[in-house]
């Protein structure tokens, strides 16, 4: 480290420029990581918080937008309810809707119709859970649209009125839209188009001949032991574990794949840029390294010294980039889906450092090929 530190100090301009590039890459990776986590949360935070082992969609439903596309019947639900290993199975109705608040604010809601008092009932941070036909529990993030306990929202076109009776614990969004849990009977009124203006009534529900749902939520005590394929065969469904069901959220797969790809490119750029820098740096020092080899320095000593130099550069400037990214992340506008979570940020930082080190290692390997004899004579 003796030589490494002195060279870092001596060529601080060159290392500073290189470090700035590493910091910028780290900053971008942190921002992408935050954006990635934010988008994931925005897309599926509602699903993530559900106490569900798997969702069963109607067989043959296209994966993208499967929640609103799928239609399951009572008979399929009954099969899953009786299936071995299933603790509970409950119908869920899903769909997007537009609504207007009392203040005239136009909002979008992702409606999730559930059976009140079932395992699907959301935990609330404020208010109460769903009981009657007109109450909804909305995502805590919907407060930014001016919603509060007791607020009445009116669904567009139908003029059906629903009252906010509770807020979920934390963010509950689906497809980047705030979720609203409501009674599945009310959801059926809305989905069938039979909902009337005003507050939904039991008479309307009783008169409705529409007992379908979108998907079946399955809860099992032993997730590993649950034979989803066998259940699918009996119920003519396509059941997927909760995590896989995220891909059925609108745009989820496209977004995460795009961001992952950009992140991969940044990792590659980081490794290449650091590798290129150390290649040039080693070439510039070639004669100096030949002198050291002639004096008696082993190639291993010089390789270790150069790698230490790369590690100091990468760790310190990645830390600066991450700190700047975290700082920037804290002032992101509310509308931007951005969430900094320690694990992805730490993982991304470590990958940046590790790949940079690999790039540097490949570059400085040329040290072992430097001939000490080139320190002599006119070969300068």
């Amino acid at each position: 480290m003796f030589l490494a530190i002195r060279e870092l100090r001596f060529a601080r301009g060159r290392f500073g420029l290189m470090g700035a590039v590493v910091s910028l890459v780290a900053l971008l990776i942190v921002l992408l990581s935050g954006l990635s986590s934010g988008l994931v949360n925005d897309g599926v935070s509602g699903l993530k918080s559900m106490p569900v082992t798997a969702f069963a969609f109607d067989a043959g439903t296209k994966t993208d937008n499967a929640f609103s596309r799928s239609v399951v019947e009572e008979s399929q639900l009954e099969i899953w309810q009786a299936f071995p290993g299933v603790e509970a199975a409950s119908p869920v109705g899903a769909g997007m809707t537009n609504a207007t608040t009392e203040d005239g604010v136009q909002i979008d809601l992702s409606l999730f119709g559930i059976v009140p008092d079932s395992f699907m009932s959301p935990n609330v941070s404020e208010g109460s859970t769903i009981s009657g036909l007109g109450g909804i529990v909305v995502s805590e993030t919907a407060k930014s649209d001016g919603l509060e306990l007791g607020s009445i929202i009116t669904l567009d076109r139908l003029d059906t009125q629903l009252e906010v009776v509770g807020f979920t614990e934390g963010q509950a969004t689906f497809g980047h839209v705030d979720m609203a849990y409501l009674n599945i009977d009310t959801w059926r009124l809305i989905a069938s188009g039979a909902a009337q203006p005003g507050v939904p009534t039991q008479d309307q529900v009783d008169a409705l001949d529409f007992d379908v749902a979108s998907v079946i939520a399955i809860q099992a005590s032993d997730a590993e032991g649950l034979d989803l394929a066998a259940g699918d065969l009996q119920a003519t469904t396509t059941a997927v574990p909760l995590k896989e069901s995220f891909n059925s959220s609108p745009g989820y797969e496209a977004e995460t794949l795009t961001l992952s790809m950009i992140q991969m490119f940044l990792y590659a750029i980081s490794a290449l840029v650091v590798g290129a820098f150390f290649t040039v740096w080693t070439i510039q020092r070639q004669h100096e390294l030949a002198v050291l080899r002639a004096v008696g320095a082993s190639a291993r000593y010089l390789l270790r010294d150069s790698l230490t130099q790369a590690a100091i550069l990468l760790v310190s400037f990645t830390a600066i980039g991450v700190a700047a990214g975290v700082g920037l992340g804290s002032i992101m506008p509310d509308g931007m889906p951005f969430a900094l979570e320690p694990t992805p940020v730490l993982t991304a930082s470590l990958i940046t450092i590790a790949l940079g080190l690999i790039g540097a290692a490949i570059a400085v390997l040329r040290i072992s090929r430097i001939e000490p004899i080139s320190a002599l004579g006119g070969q300068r």
Partner: protein
Amino acid sequence: MSSAHNLETVLRFENVTLELGDGDSRVRPLDSVSLEIARSEFVGVVGPSGAGKSTLLAVAGALQSPDSGSVRVLDQELTEIAGSQGKMAKFRLRNIGFVFQSGNLIPALNAADQLRLVNRLAGGSSAFDPMPFLEAVGMAHKAKNLPRQLSGGERQRVGIARALVTSPGLLLVDEPTAALDRARSQQVVALLAEQSRTQGVAIMMVTHDHEVLGHCDRVLEMVDGRLGAFQPATT
């Protein structure tokens, strides 16, 4: 360093031959070279460019192995360790000092650190003090200067101090006056001669500069790979 330093002969070449290149470009920079340099002896080697002077230094310095013949430095036959770069490097580090053209100092290290680095490479004590070595070459007052802050002569002085850090038995000097004016050339070579006497080190200096040969105990001439006594041109 070792008891070997007490040996009278520090460097011995016996019938050393080395050929380089292939086909038509094949040359013989060392052709049956025999040579002995004793402790405290300062030997100058002159000769035209391409005569084999640098190759002579490289072979004596365990940087290159000959095709045939014997090369012994102190009590080590170099051809015996020629197959191992690691052993050659370790031997150089402990027994052979190099003084290069223009000093060839590490740009990032100040004068004192140039010496500290060599001490560290040789596994020396962390309490190593470079000042006595710098004082011996008259550079103690510039211990904290970087190479770019030193003149050509000063760089060479630091280079000489660096080469002596491990108390080598043999000092190999490559064109030490190549980048110096006349006065500084004389000072630097006089310093080398002084070190040879006071430190008991054997010195082989390759040079084009005939004006500094007066400091040498013996001068040899290399022509087409053959080494012989120097015959100064008479005018």
